[in-house]
């Protein structure tokens, strides 16, 4: 392979670093109205009256919008395919506010300062109501978040708003109760995971303008431009044909930009006033009023035989979706569907639970998408079980885990909100990943721990993980390739590059198939007018789904080129050779090069534009797999943890661009370690987020991790483009469990609640001392 499986620098990296016009706010018109949102100071309240007269009297204020300005159409901001698996439980503006930071009113004015002043001049009379702040007490609470009659589910998702339930689910295979009863050893444990913030450096940003055809043009920092266009049309009643959504370069998404946040407001204002407008979330708004990861409680029971055969997995999950049910069911289901198949030899499995409404900032899509929560619980529980069995945790996994060419019945039962798709693991190098990771971390010489000094202990821990590659039969990607004179190509794709490098790897796929160099493929992506459809950057789908579409389009283009060349060379297509630059008549050795052919097609003879297009929908979702190994130094006096090394051995099929793939894995590892160590949204007893800035919400810095070692297993997924599977999410899954396991290996205490702060470690050590 010439272009794929090579570490080309990303096609946009250099321009971005040189400060070229690239990001959403760079494209906002100078005279844009500034849009700002008045946000609720109460976790739950009814708006009795809004008096905006003083704000409207202020010079420079264009308009103040309240719930009275919008038609009462329930919808979901989730940014998913249609019909969505998320309940339609949100109004653009509502007379109820359901969390501190929820939208009350919207101001558009000529400057930031006027906007701020106008916000302070709006008088709102609230009827404050009792909030639900503890998600374990949400079901059947007397305080109901969504009593409004208009809201509904799009298909059955177990939606029971009057019980504060946004979604619920139950599945089982075999008889779990019986299998547990028959097991020699059983463990049972509840695990808690917290709300995590995406902390993309670029805040949620969108601007709007009317073009010379009187169409609404949006630049948006989004992961889902096509869903944005659809949802705007559905909620604002603007014809789809009158909306164009352009996604420029995006400064990180991690799932936080799958949903719509400011899009409705700027669109409404610009469509109504015909003036350009823009909104840029403040960092506080990103923290308080966008999304977090769903906090969960996972109750796990495992049963095994004395010889270490895992027999049963029972898992109940309670998930907190906050004020609105965006991604409620699907994130919850992935906590099972992309975790439980890791142990595919069990007799029985049960997975069930509820997703509840609370008066917290809504939870939404976030890298890992439930799998990180499920992985933390299951992979922690497996180590606990091994301890009880007196069995080596690696040996146990090697015995019980998924192997190549095997399957799990879960794939057929659980999809994302619907039934799943049966599939065999045609590529699964988990065995190699575990073996290689064990070597790289020096497991045998450290496990379970080594005392380093009076207070410091060195230890290791590990976990295995899987993810998916797109949503079968739902996610669709497409591509158009156009030949230009001089012999270079345009690649037009709906796929959404949000910094992960999808423009680069999709261009690599096209270049590989067309046997040309990367600079001959000019990528343009994510513009609803100019590029074909794509569901967007989520569910680890771009490499596999959009990549397959690009590969198919490139194959078609190659066919078209050979056809045209054979006409010139006066031979059959089967007699025409093509090496990417030159066509050869294999009968008489006559040649024509691509440049001459394309110039001829453009200007001279038999003129035509060559265009090839294709689209792709997955029929399966081949999981990437990985083994994560952590080495830590832990201080038993302070409970502080130093990350000495994190080894990731990943099976993502062919890494199309090893450098970018490594970046994806390592970014995921560090983000996962942040969740494991200290990232935490702290909510006061009054429902206020008290960690709404970077001084108080700590993410790992460059200083935190001494060493990351990332390797890729040799693997080839025949259904993927050039053997590739996904790699965007899998990296985030293992750190919480691997770290929890390393802590237990060092100190003999089991951390069952994230983040695993020194405070909790010291408390656990004290409790252990007391027991002894």
């Amino acid at each position: 392979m010439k272009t794929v499986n090579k570490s080309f620098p990303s096609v946009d990296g250099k321009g971005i670093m040189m400060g070229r016009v690239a990001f959403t706010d760079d494209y906002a018109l100078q005279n844009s109205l500034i849009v700002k949102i008045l946000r609720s100071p109460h976790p739950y309240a009814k708006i009795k009256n809004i008096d905006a007269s003083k704000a409207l009297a202020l010079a420079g204020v264009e308009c103040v919008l309240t719930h009275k300005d919008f038609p009462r159409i329930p919808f979901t901001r989730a940014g998913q395919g249609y019909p969505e698996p998320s309940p339609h439980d949100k109004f653009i503006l509502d007379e109820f506010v359901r969390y501190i930071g929820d939208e009350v009113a919207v101001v558009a004015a000529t400057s930031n300062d006027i906007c701020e002043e106008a916000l302070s001049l709006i008088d709102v009379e609230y009827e404050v109501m009792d909030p639900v702040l503890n998600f374990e007490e949400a079901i059947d609470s007397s305080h109901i978040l969504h009593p409004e009659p208009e809201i509904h589910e799009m298909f059955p998702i177990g939606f029971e708003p009057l019980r504060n339930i946004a979604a619920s689910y139950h599945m089982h295979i075999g008889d779990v109760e019986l299998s547990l009863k028959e097991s020699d050893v059983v463990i049972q444990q509840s695990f808690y995971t917290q709300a995590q913030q995406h902390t993309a450096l670029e805040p949620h940003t969108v601007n709007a303008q009317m073009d010379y055809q009187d169409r609404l043009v949006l630049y948006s920092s989004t992961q889902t431009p096509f869903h944005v266009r659809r949802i705007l049309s559905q909620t604002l009643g603007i014809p789809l044909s009158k909306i164009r959504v352009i996604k420029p370069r995006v400064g990180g998404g991690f799932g936080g930009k799958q949903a719509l946040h400011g899009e409705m407001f700027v669109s409404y204002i610009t469509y109504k006033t015909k003036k350009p407008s823009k909104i840029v979330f403040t960092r506080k708004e990103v923290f308080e009023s966008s999304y977090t990861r769903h906090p969960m409680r996972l109750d796990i029971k495992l049963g095994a035989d004395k010889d270490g055969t895992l027999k049963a997995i029972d898992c109940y999950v309670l998930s907190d979706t906050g004020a609105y049910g965006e991604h409620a069911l699907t994130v919850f289901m992935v906590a099972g569907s992309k975790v439980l198949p890791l142990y595919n030899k069990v007799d029985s499995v049960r997975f069930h639970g509820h997703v509840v409404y609370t008066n917290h900032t809504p939870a939404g899509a976030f890298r890992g998408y439930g799998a990180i929560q499920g992985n933390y619980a299951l992979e922690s529980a497996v180590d606990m079980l091994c301890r009880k069995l007196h069995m080596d945790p690696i040996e146990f996994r090697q015995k019980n885990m998924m192997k190549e060419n095997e399957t799990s019945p879960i794939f057929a039962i659980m999809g994302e909100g619907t039934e799943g798709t049966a599939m065999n693991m045609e590529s699964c190098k988990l065995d190699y990943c575990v073996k290689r990771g064990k070597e790289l971390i020096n497991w045998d010489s450290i496990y379970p721990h080594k005392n380093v000094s009076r207070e410091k202990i060195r230890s290791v821990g590990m976990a295995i993980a899987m993810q998916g590659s797109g949503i079968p039969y739902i996610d669709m990607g497409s591509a158009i390739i156009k030949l230009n004179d001089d012999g270079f190509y345009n690649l037009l794709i709906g796929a959404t590059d949000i910094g992960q490098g999808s423009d680069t790897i999709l261009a690599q796929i096209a270049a590989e198939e067309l046997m040309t160099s990367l600079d001959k493929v000019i990528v343009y992506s994510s513009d609803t007018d100019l590029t074909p459809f794509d569901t967007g950057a989520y569910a680890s789908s771009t490499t596999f789904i959009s990549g397959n579409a690009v590969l198919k389009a490139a194959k078609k283009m190659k066919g078209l080129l050979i056809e045209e060349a054979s006409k010139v060379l006066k031979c059959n297509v089967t007699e025409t050779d093509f090496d990417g630059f030159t066509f050869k008549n294999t009968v008489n050795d006559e040649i024509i090069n691509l440049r001459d052919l394309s110039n001829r097609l453009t200007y001279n003879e038999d003129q035509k534009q060559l265009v090839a297009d294709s689209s792709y929908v997955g029929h399966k979702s081949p999981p990437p797999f990985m083994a994560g190994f952590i080495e830590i130094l832990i201080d038993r006096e302070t409970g502080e943890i130093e990350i000495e090394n994190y080894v990731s051995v990943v099976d993502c099929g062919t890494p199309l661009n090893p450098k970018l793939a490594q970046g994806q894995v390592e970014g995921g590892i560090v983000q996962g370690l942040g969740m494991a160590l200290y990232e935490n949204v702290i909510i006061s007893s009054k429902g206020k987020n008290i960690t709404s800035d970077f001084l108080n919400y700590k993410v790992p810095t460059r200083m935190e991790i001494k060493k990351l070692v990332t390797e890729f297993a040799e693997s080839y997924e025949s259904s993927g483009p050039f053997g590739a599977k996904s790699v965007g999410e899998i990296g985030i899954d293992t750190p919480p469990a691997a770290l929890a396991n390393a802590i237990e290996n060092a100190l003999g205490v089991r951390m069952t609640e994230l983040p695993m702060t020194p405070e909790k470690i010291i408390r656990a050590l004290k409790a252990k001392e007391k027991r002894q």
Partner: protein
Amino acid sequence: MVEQIIVKSVEEALSRLSERKYIIYAGGTDLIVQNRTVSEAPIPFKNPVLYCANLKELKYVKEGDDYLYIGAMTTLSELLTYESVPKLLKEAIEQMASPAIRNIATLAGNLGNASPAGDSLVPLYTLNALIKCQSVKASRLIPIQDFFVGLKKTALTDSEMITEIIIPKNRFKSTMYRKVGTRKADALSKVSFAGAYSIVHDKICDFRISIGAVNVTVVRRFDIEAKLIGKTIEQAQKMKNQIISLYLSSIKPINDQRSNIEYRTQVTKNLISAFMDTLD
């Protein structure tokens, strides 16, 4: 907008301070955070500002026979470049904030801010530092433990500024500094600790412990330290539990979003114990 003055000399600064109340602005790394707003408007200071960061006269580290003299506008990064700056203080500075902040922040600012979590305060207590507070009329040398008079309160009057920090030259047998924070960079202390001791003829002749972030000001207890003077290491170590409980009676940690009482208490205990175990 309030008046903002860039002073050209210490003399000018002091004469302005004698006229009315000013906010003294050094690196601004506390002031900006404390006065920030969400909008892009200028920082809304409540009093006029005296910008002192470029007073060259106050940027120095000088060594005398018995003392080290640090000019008030010397940045933390600069301090790290001097051999003469004591190890305890350097260890604390190295773990403060992050390189960009250390390039403009000052020791005087850390003192002036008087936060219970101010990291340089802890080693400066252990080092018996003196704070030089100057006004047009006079100059006072205040021992550090008298400089802090309560939560976020110092002995400084409105007409004074810190011009110098003076550190007696000490020759310890050994020192121990520990900062316990959430992560390695840009994280305030949950607990910090600076211990030092010396031994002559097998007997402890100097023993000092300062603990930060567990009370409104740094905890330093001369009376507890005195109990160990003249003791052998063996005798001292036998007194360990007694010493620890005496310290615990003088700390008053709080629950905040960084940490909690239980943790701060336990870690204080563990760090005193660890320090006493290092005696040899």
